[in-house]
């Protein structure tokens, strides 16, 4: 809050009104509905419904399918976050070092930011298509008995690869600007003190990038939880055997494919609580930073 402010008057309410009205109609009301729905057993067409307390939770949470999905979501989020951060950091450090062609590298490495996840998914899908996909042939020619339609490890590999690919550019942008904000004098002093590149990175650069990294971890986890929906929907669709279905994807399939509203809503609410926990952690361990 500003120390100097306009004093109390109806004016601020006018300014904030559009935002609040939209939130009330399109956020609070539907969110409340979702919570209410999670306690109902209602037929798909909404013609009859009964209040059943926690039956939907009991029927859908902690079932084999849900646990499988939760397990995959965790592994998936961890790997996507770790790999895309590591790759982006490596590229950003190198891009910050080189003198020739720095601008070109930068452009080539960041442009994928603009590509929609489902579009990335479709491109990846065709790359791995058993009928025309070059990567599919390549991996098999390399001696890997690769079949992502049948093998859950291979399917996970495809989804993670595409999700990482899509996320590298955002991380790269943040890391690079983080590096560029380190004062030149600090870097020069470090070069004199420490001749080994690797040691210099771990003792100098990495700690300086830590705040950015922390912040990116949260963004990346959110990305892996929610935004990868489009990738999964256009590649594996959760197959084989539901092994690549994230929790959000499962909410979608149960609700929109299976038309089980109560069960799907109950899973949404659990997901909400998970995101809430994530945010609390973010606030506890990282200073108050808010980002989408």
């Amino acid at each position, binding site marked *: 809050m500003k120390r100097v402010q306009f004093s109390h008057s109806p004016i601020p309410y006018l300014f904030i009104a559009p935002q609040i009205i939209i939130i009330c109609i399109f956020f609070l009301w539907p969110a409340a509905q979702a919570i209410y729905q999670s306690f109902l057993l209602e*037929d798909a067409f909404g*013609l009859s419904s009964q209040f059943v307390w926690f039956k939907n939770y009991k029927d859908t949470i902690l079932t084999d399918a849900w646990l499988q999905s939760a397990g995959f979501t965790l592994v998936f989020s961890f790997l996507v976050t770790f790999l895309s951060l590591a790759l982006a950091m490596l590229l950003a450090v190198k891009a910050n070092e080189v003198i020739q062609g720095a601008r070109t590298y930068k452009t080539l490495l960041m442009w994928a930011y603009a590509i929609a996840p489902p579009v990335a998914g479709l491109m990846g899908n065709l790359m791995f298509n058993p009928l025309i996909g070059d990567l599919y042939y390549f991996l098999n020619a390399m001696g890997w008995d690769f079949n992502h*339609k049948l093998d859950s490890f291979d399917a996970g590999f495809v989804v993670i690869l595409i999700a990482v690919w899509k996320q590298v550019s955002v991380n790269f942008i943040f890391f690079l600007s983080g590096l560029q904000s380190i004062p030149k004098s600090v870097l020069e002093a470090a070069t004199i003190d420490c001749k080994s590149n690797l040691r210099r990175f771990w003792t100098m650069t990495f700690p300086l990038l830590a705040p950015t990294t922390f912040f990116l971890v949260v963004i990346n986890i959110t990305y892996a939880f929610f935004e990868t929906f489009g990738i999964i929907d256009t590649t594996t*669709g959760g197959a084989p*055997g539901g092994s690549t279905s994230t929790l959000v994807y499962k909410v979608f399939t149960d609700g929109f*494919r299976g038309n089980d509203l109560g069960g799907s809503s109950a899973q949404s609410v659990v997901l909400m609580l998970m995101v809430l926990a994530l945010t609390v952690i973010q606030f506890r361990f990282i200073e108050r930073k808010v980002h989408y």
Partner: protein
Amino acid sequence: MLKRTLTAIGAFSCLATISVANAATEVQWWHAMGGRLGEVVDEIAVKYNASQSEYKLVPTYKGGYEDTMTAGIAAFRAKQQPHILQIFDAGAATIINAKGATIAVADLMAEHGAGFNKEDYLAGVRNFYADSDGKMIGMPFNSSTPLLYYNKEAFKKAGIATPPKTWEEFEAIAPKLKEAGYIALAQSHSPWIFTENFHSRHNLQMATANNGYDSTDVKIMYNNPELKMHWGKVKEWLDKGWYGYYGRAWGDNQDAFIQKKTAMWLGSSGSFGGLTKSAEFEFGGSFLPYWKSIVDEPKGTFIGGAALFAMSGHDDEEYKGVADFMKFLTSPEMQYFWHKETGYVPITNAAYDLAKNDGYYETTPDAEIGILQLNQPGGDWTKGYRLGYYVQIREVLYKHFDDIFAGKLSVDDAFAKIEEESNDLLERFNATYN
């Protein structure tokens, strides 16, 4: 009250609405027919609209079967439902058990002067979308049945004269095809072909309560020795290189057949038209094989595909339009047109006769195979099934079939899980819809 306020705000803040002003009564039809099928649907609409001026039929493609069903349901909840909604076989229980969501087509057509006689429809077609008393609720639209397609070139190369009638025969020829460089078989929809129709073909019961027609309080009967034997065999074939699995999507496996990777493919009678265009080799169609060890006289198969449902909540004038269109759609000429253009079977006896008299099957004998298979003698368990949350049950099937293929679960364990998880879903459905 809130709703009214919201509506007011909505109307006020509306930037751009797309609306079609029209004098004729509009009949909205949401369907799931993509690609070439969608084009034929549009042609039907053009023909219908040209045939009269009172009603205007507006078909809209809503994506795949599940997308279309969900869109229709969401629209119904928001009181924006179309007049006609296409619902596929697995969704039949959801829409028919939601009392008051639809108007039975038998009633609708009788009431609005379009006339309705159940006997007009092919025997294999009239029961699947009917209630337990046999009254037709949905109008079968794109009706198909699983067929075996085989690559004649491949068969010649391997020195095989005819396609296998039984799975025993299949096992005899598969090694020869393998030697000739082909994977013998692929299949496009394992719940539909290797589960549901497996039961119909062998006249086995699928579920209690008359396959689910009599009640929603029902238990699945998939954990049976015959089906387990079959899947044990399929896994064996996969391991021996006689069976190929190219993914869950329908097209994955069909494309493998087109690319000559597999010598045979189990698909739908509706695939016929597409194959004619894309396959660069001579191919033929044949009945779905059966196990001689289970039955001597195989029965017919279920119809697959989807039906058209008349959604409730519209006014009489519009229903007259719906009935009028349904009458037009089921006329022999239109059915014959649909049959010829897409390969789906005609649903009325009159249309079948028209096709026969026109000499269609003399020039294109393969187009008749699906109808002949549907018209094979029926048994106690060949009219269909009505199981709730069946979309999810199919997911359960896929999931555990994947596990069998990947060697993660034995056939016995997989079917025990299928039984348990399916029954949980059926129980949930029963609790919801009662």
